[in-house]
């Protein structure tokens, strides 16, 4: 009763407490809006923005890694306002001004993945913990991409994968901090099958030789599903050891099988060897079921195609990007890269260059380097002028969607680089799929 007399009662106490809590809770966020930018790993605090380029500098994919590094170096130059600007001039929309990222100069450190998961994680960790890298990007293997992506999720560092074609990277192993510009095996199957139907008809029998590891399995599944959907039959699927070298014992059974199409689900050196030897065994000179035997290499890379020499002539496959594209973005990039290095860029170089610019642009749009905000800026981002037409980084799985190129080994190359001719730019809508079919969880924005 005395409390009532003094004007202090339970209701007033509650009111005051609520007001206090609200004040204490809200006021700091008003005064410190944007202050989260000071609470993340490797905040440059006005100094140089350091990017971590994790590419194979040694090992079997070191030539691809070297091309990735060339592209990254060029991207950094363009971001800092040097050179002709390359795709900065064609990217739409773009917030890049050629003054670094958020006005801060861009520099970089490099690591060697060696195309080994452990080595790649070690070099990524070193660049994050010791060198102060804000993002990690690059690589030339799905195994490496998945391993480094998981590390980057733990450390709260954005990872933009280089060459990785397995469905798992943005499927069951997807991560909030990971993004992929490259296409995947599902998209290869969806893009390639209609062209195969047009070129070879719907009454075909396929024989698969497949690399015995994760990428091979997903590639085989994607092509098998897609070709069976157009009416083809699958005679046999044979797994071949990675790094086999001599494929003769796997090729000769094809000669006496009922198959009239051979699908080589191989990449890198395995692709070079299996394709070269298939040609030597005269597969393409023979007929079966009244039709010429055809060979298909689902994933082509120009750098790898060089290793197969003349054997790629006339062989159909798919690729992420090719330097012969005539859109303004591709032409600008080829011009910059060619002027800098004297030869055209590979698809690996294109992927890495584009991703660097996209990361920088996302920072500009977010107005911060704070990773969760940069991630939000990248998720669902629509853009154009970077090759392959209108493109989207899908928010649900961080997979990039754009037109996919179906290519054929050039029968009459005009130079040593003119190895692939684009048969069709398959529209993005034809290769899209429901993000849920490959499972996986992106995980949280905020990591401790």
């Amino acid at each position, binding site marked *: 009763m005395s409390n009532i007399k003094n004007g202090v009662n339970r209701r007033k106490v509650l009111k005051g407490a609520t007001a206090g809590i609200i004040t204490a809770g809200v006021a700091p966020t008003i005064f410190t809006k944007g202050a989260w930018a000071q609470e993340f790993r490797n905040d440059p605090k006005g100094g140089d923005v350091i990017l971590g380029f994790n590419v194979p500098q040694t090992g079997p994919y070191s030539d691809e890694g070297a091309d990735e590094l060339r592209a990254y170096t060029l991207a950094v130059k363009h971001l800092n306002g040097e050179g002709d600007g390359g795709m900065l001039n064609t990217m739409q929309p773009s917030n890049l001004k050629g003054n670094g990222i958020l006005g801060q100069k861009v520099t970089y450190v490099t690591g060697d993945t060696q195309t080994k998961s452990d080595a790649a994680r070690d070099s990524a960790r070193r660049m994050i913990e010791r060198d102060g890298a804000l993002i990690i990007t690059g690589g030339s293997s799905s195994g490496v991409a998945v391993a480094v992506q998981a590390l980057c999720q733990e450390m709260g560092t954005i990872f933009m994968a280089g060459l990785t074609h397995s469905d798992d990277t943005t499927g069951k192993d997807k991560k909030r901090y990971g993004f992929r510009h490259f296409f995947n095996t599902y998209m290869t199957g969806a893009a390639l099958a209609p062209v195969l139907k047009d070129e070879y008809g719907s009454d075909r029998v396929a024989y698969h030789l497949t690399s015995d590891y994760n990428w091979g399995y997903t590639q085989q599944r994607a092509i098998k599903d897609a070709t069976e959907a157009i009416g083809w039959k699958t005679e046999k699927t044979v797994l071949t050891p990675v790094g086999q070298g001599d494929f003769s014992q796997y090729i000769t059974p094809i000669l006496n099988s009922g198959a009239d199409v051979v699908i080589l689900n191989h990449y890198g050196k395995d692709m070079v060897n299996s394709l070269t030897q298939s040609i*030597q065994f005269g597969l393409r000179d023979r007929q079966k079921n009244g039709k010429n035997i055809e060979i298909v290499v689902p994933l082509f890379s120009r750098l790898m195609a060089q*290793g197969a020499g003349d054997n790629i002539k006339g062989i159909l496959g798919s690729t992420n990007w090719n330097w012969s594209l005539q859109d303004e973005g591709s032409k600008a990039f080829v011009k910059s890269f060619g002027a800098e290095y004297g030869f055209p860029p590979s698809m690996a170089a294109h992927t890495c260059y584009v991703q660097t610019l996209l990361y920088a642009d996302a920072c500009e749009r977010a107005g911060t380097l704070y990773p969760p905000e940069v991630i939000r800026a990248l998720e669902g981002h629509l853009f154009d002028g970077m090759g392959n037409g209108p493109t989207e980084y899908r928010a649900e799985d961080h997979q990039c969607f754009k037109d996919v190129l179906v290519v054929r080994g050039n029968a009459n190359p005009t130079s040593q680089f003119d190895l692939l001719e684009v048969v069709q730019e398959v529209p993005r809508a034809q290769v899209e799929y429901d993000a849920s079919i490959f499972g996986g969880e992106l995980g949280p924005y905020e990591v401790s």
Partner: protein
Amino acid sequence: MEAIILQVLNGLDKGGAYALIALGLTLVFGTLGVVNFAHGALFMIGAFCAVTFRKLITLEQVVLSKTELSPWGTPLEIRTPYAQQWFGDFGNVLIDYSVPFSLLLAIPVMLLLGIAMERGIIKHFYKRPHAEQILVTFGLAIVLQEIVRTFFGANPNPQPIPQSLQGVAELGVMVGMAKNTITYPIWRLVYLFFSLSVIASVFAFLKFTTFGLVVRAGMSDRETVSMLGINIDKRFTIMFGIAAIVTGFAGVMYTPILPPDYTIGMDFLVLTFIVVVVGGMGSLPGAVLAGFMLGVLQSLASMTEVKDIIPGIDQIIIYLIAVIVLLVRPRGLFGKRGMMEN
């Protein structure tokens, strides 16, 4: 039946490479008693002799076009091989047959490299344990690999088959079978006959020349031969060089089958060591026969009919045979009594 014949041919072809490399390896072990893990690197260097030779004879004169531009805006480069300009039609033949011609480059390169390896490094490890020999030669192999990678990159370097030797031979038709029943790449048949010829030459050299006689005597009893006033060390050094040439030849002629990169030697190294162990350490006929035998078994094991019964057998067959031989007959099929049995 056709499938078995084709797999036997595959095995013989592969076995030809195994036998040639194993022969070189056994020559070194039999003469100098050294376990040479850099032997695979010699195969790789041989392969890159072919790559280098082709690069040299396809060197081009580059003229900048005054009218045409490259896609990146610089003047277009018009390239013409010097060999064509200088030698006309013979230049074209030289380019077409670059792989067989590169054997001529391989002879001095491999001989000098072999002698340099033996005199420069390996001779210092004769009296050291085999474990140390393995370590130093393995290290040497890695150094050679990295040197090649630095100059030639990591990607495979395809080498063409001469035009007249491209395509397949109708072996089935030759024995009265229908067309397309048994066909086999001509170049692989060339490789098989080439490897048999080199093997026969090495055996003839050892059997019918005075030099070979002395070397064989030295392999049997080094001390006695030395006591006769013969500089057996010098002859063994030359044998190291000859072993390097034999292995280099295997590498040169294999390049059209397997586009070489810097790892090609390591891919063969383990397999050829198994060949040598199965054949019997130090036994030249053992190395050759085991090479062909394991090649054939490896091919037969990869037949679908066999893999349906024992899945994965194609990947372990060679190792399985090595285990069985080491358990049952540790000295190998043709090894000397007592070798690896203590």
